[in-house]
């Protein structure tokens, strides 16, 4: 399945901004252990587009605005040709799952990074 990765704002850009160190490489290394030939979104890493579900947006009640916010995220995933998006964030996961039904993208699989690891383990 064509797979891609989404950088949550707080683990990436904002962590870099606030603490001088963003987590961009580590999740990509983990993803590469599980999936061959996954593709990057464009833009990516520091310039990644927010999913629109952060900062409490999933629970603020401003749902129309939140869904509108996510339009660029959906376009970006489509443009990458991906059918699975891997995320290491509860808010992004919730938002992406919600967006896919709003933007006619039901065949998109939204996967936690740790879920992918658990799926790939041979025990």
């Amino acid at each position, binding site marked *: 399945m064509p797979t891609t990765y989404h950088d949550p704002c707080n683990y990436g*850009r904002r962590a870099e*901004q606030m603490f001088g160190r963003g987590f961009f490489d580590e999740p990509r290394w983990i993803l590469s252990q599980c999936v061959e030939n996954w593709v990057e979104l464009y833009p990516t890493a520091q310039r990644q*587009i927010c999913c629109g579900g952060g*900062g409490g947006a999933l629970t603020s*009640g401003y749902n129309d605005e939140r869904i509108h916010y996510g339009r660029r995220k959906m376009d970006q995933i489509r443009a990458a040709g991906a059918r699975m998006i891997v995320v290491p964030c509860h808010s992004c996961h919730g938002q992406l799952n919600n967006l896919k039904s709003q933007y006619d993208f039901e065949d998109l699989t939204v996967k936690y990074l740790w879920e992918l690891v658990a799926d790939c*383990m041979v*025990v």
Partner: protein
Amino acid sequence: MTDIDTHQTTDLNGLDPGRFRDWSCDQDFCVTCALCSSACPVSGIDDFDPRKLVRMTALGMEDEIVEARWPWICTMCGKCENLCPMDIHIPAMVRRIRGLRDRDAVPGILHKGLEAAMQSGNNLGLPREDFVFILEDVAEEVAEEPGFEGFKVPIDKKGANLLTTIHNKLVNTHTEDLKHWWKIFHAAGEDWTVSSVNWEGTNWGYFTGDDERMKVMVDRIVEQMERLEVKNLMWPE
């Protein structure tokens, strides 16, 4: 919530430039270049764009910025801050504005969830017995899968290597998602634990600009680490 009518006349005598200088967000040094507005995914919604909010904050227009829904539509994603030539901390400024709202007027369930957490230890108000029941129930399901025979969830294990917090949705509507980390811990032979009280990993005081309650939530996690004599914390929320 009031929409801001940017076409209305503003009483210039009511302005108070530099009023929020002690926020350490540097909004007073905005050069009005609008790079932030170009970067923002919600510029245009409800007439919002970050430059306007920055300027209004710099001019001390407290009532307008506090009543606007703009600070709540922003996700504090930091796209704006990333480009700002003056290094203005726009997400932090947004959070400060949120904090000025009357707590009863905080939108959605954000403050209600936080209040429930103040009372009960978690946003759901879930009692300890129910929490333990859910975890043990899910653990039994894991133990039925090949390779995970005998799996148990080590609740309140003193001296474990790792304490993990729990996102409230995982003991509410998404219990299946508890299993992934548990399976990884099992396969890795990790000596881990979860606290039966104050296990909540989300901290809605961060979202609502409520420093006081945010600290309470953080302190509680530290307390559990001390109580259980655990040195490492995994806090994936």
